[in-house]
């Protein structure tokens, strides 16, 4: 349904997207994970048609996404900004934004009422949106993107800064959209969100996809190893040097920063060796945790940094 090939975009000297390629099928929900500056919003903006001056091709339903204006009717966007009119009611906002697409008025009204039910705003449909809480506004923002039954839904961090109830509601909407055949790309910082919502996960950094697949496929990248998370009073440099001669011997340093490091070990028996090296270098360890591999460790392995960095 969607084929992205070699999409490249620069802001001056900064390469935001570097020959980015991706395929997405009907009903697939792709979670796009990446640290700040990875290129997620740039990708969404290009697909939404609000960013120009890039190279590469995007084919949607067999047609050039940017050459065929009619395809805009098949695209649903949920931007990071709360892009609607505060002075209008939720219903008025839905009717206006939905009206910009080629949806018959009666169908639009029916669809708006149905969506308000789904995002649990039906009881406050006539109230000005400025009276809504942040979570309610996020739900409305998401509903606007779904009004015209898009074939491709793009959501740019739709759960930023909202309460748990609103987050659950939005993730439900995303799952339902996928189940009804809409292809979805949504960007987030929240690993748990993609773990529970997406059929496929792509990890990107520096404008490229580093790895993609289902959760299980990604976890296998780390392998059948345990993850050791060490906290202490140490700098990144001396920590790496301390483990230099045992690295590769069933021990892999996934990430290290001042006072925190993650390692993958083939067996927990390796841990005394690690501690011995650290004590020899007089690096103080205050805490040590052993975890099973998860998306976070995959992310750490692939990007070398935490998702919040």
């Amino acid at each position: 349904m969607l084929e992205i090939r070699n999409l490249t975009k620069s802001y001056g000297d900064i390469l935001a997207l570097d020959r980015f390629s991706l395929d997405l099928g009907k009903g697939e929900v792709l979670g796009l994970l990446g640290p700040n500056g990875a290129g997620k919003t740039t990708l969404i903006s290009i697909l939404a048609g609000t960013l120009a001056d890039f190279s590469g091709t995007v084919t949607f339903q067999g047609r050039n996404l940017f050459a065929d204006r009619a395809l805009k009717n098949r695209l649903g966007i949920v931007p990071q900004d709360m892009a609607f009119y505060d002075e209008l009611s939720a219903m008025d906002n839905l009717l206006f934004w939905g009206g910009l697409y080629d949806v018959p008025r009666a169908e639009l009204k029916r669809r708006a009422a149905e969506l308000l039910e789904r995002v649990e705003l039906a009881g406050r449909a006539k109230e000005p949106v400025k009276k809504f809480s942040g979570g309610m506004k996020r739900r409305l923002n998401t509903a606007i993107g779904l009004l015209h039954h898009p074939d491709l839904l793009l959501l740019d961090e739709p759960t930023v800064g909202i309460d748990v109830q609103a987050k659950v509601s939005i993730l439900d909407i995303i799952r339902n959209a996928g189940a009804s055949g809409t292809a979805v790309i949504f960007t987030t910082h929240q690993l748990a969100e993609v773990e529970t919502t997406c059929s496929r996960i792509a990890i990107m950094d520096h404008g490229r996809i580093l790895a993609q697949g289902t959760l299980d496929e990604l976890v296998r990248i780390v392998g059948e190893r345990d993850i050791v998370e060490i906290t202490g009073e140490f700098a990144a440099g001396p920590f790496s040097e301390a483990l230099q001669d045992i690295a590769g011997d069933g021990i892999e340093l996934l990430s290290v920063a001042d006072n925190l490091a993650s390692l993958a070990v083939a067996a927990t028996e390796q841990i005394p060796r690690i501690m011995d090296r650290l004590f020899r270098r007089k690096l103080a360890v205050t805490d040590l945790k052993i975890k099973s591999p998860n998306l976070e460790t995959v992310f750490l392995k692939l990007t070398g940094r935490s998702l919040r960095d």
Partner: protein
Amino acid sequence: MRRLLLVLANDVRRHLKAPMAILIFMVIPLGMTGLIGVIFAPQTEGSELPPISVLLVDNDKGLASKLLVGAFDVDQMKEMFQVTVTDEADGRKRMGRGKASAMVVIPEGFTLDLLDAKPVTLLVVKNPSEQFLPDVVEEFMNTMAVMLSGVVQAFAEEVRGIRAMLDRPVESFPWDKLGPEFGKAQKKVVAARTYLDPLILRLKAEETKAAGARTSFTQADLFSAVLPGMAVMFLLFIVQTLMRDIISEREDGKLRRMLTTPLRPIELIGARIAGGWVMGIAVLLVMVAAGTLIFRATWGPLGGFLLLGAVASFWAAAFFALLHALVRNRNQSGAFSAPIILAFSLFGGSMMNLEAMPKAFRTVGILTPNRWFIDGAALLRDGRFPFVPILILAGSGILLLALAVPALRRRTSV
């Protein structure tokens, strides 16, 4: 076109849902007009000017000076002037305290010098704190001076005869010769009558008695003159407020969201400009209705005024579309818009009467929409069609639009 109308309707609905800004900009001009009316207009309808207080110093006390003093005592003059005869020292003291509009000093020997056809000077001391009442006194004295000079020259021979008699002591005054001298003068007047009677030119004062018409300048007239200036100034403020959406929607992400829909940038631009235009006309209509109901202001033919308002509103929409295509953010919009509107209003005559402004200001004023709107409104009140103001506003509006649309396209396109 459907989407353009949808955006336009949505803009109107939004502003009607949150009308405070527009209401404020409608109430302020009406309030200011009311205030100006209360301060500057006559308190009772049809009232005349108050009597002009004149101090008269007669240092001559002769025949001619009496004639001059007497002129103030004629019926109509009595209503216009309140004359106090005094001496020069007291007169100057009173003038120093601002107790009179002007002081007229008739010099000693005025009558004899006049009869001898020597140049004489009447002194008019004007009160500088009053605007035009002293000028009325000066003009009146000018007229009297011209009349007296004319009489002395026309009756030079008779004046010489009478003048010779005046040199004699009272007890030997030749009363018997006075009659013939006046007789000669009368003959001259009678002879002149053959040429002057019937008078070719007659002056006839007539008061218009058309229904509802008032002959004097009333409070309603003042409102009618002031309100268009106020209305156009706040029309600019209102349209500027509406057109600021161009900037604010760019900043808060609504523009980006709109561009992800099938809405074309040109449709969005068209909707924004049309929205400013339509709302401007609507606001003017409300102000016309309020001005008529509250102040009994007159506007001339409503159709003509609506056309004038429509082109003024179009001009404002095009101008602020261009401005908002050039500024970068809301702060810049606010920083530029308010001074520009105030400058337009100052030079264009919304804040003060154009006639009272220096010539340079009036020249700058022709570059403002306020000037042409005010001129147009005045023409309409006079019963004339404001062809030139409408043409200038429409023409310059089209020019502004031609500059605004490509600039906005650059700003709204990806």
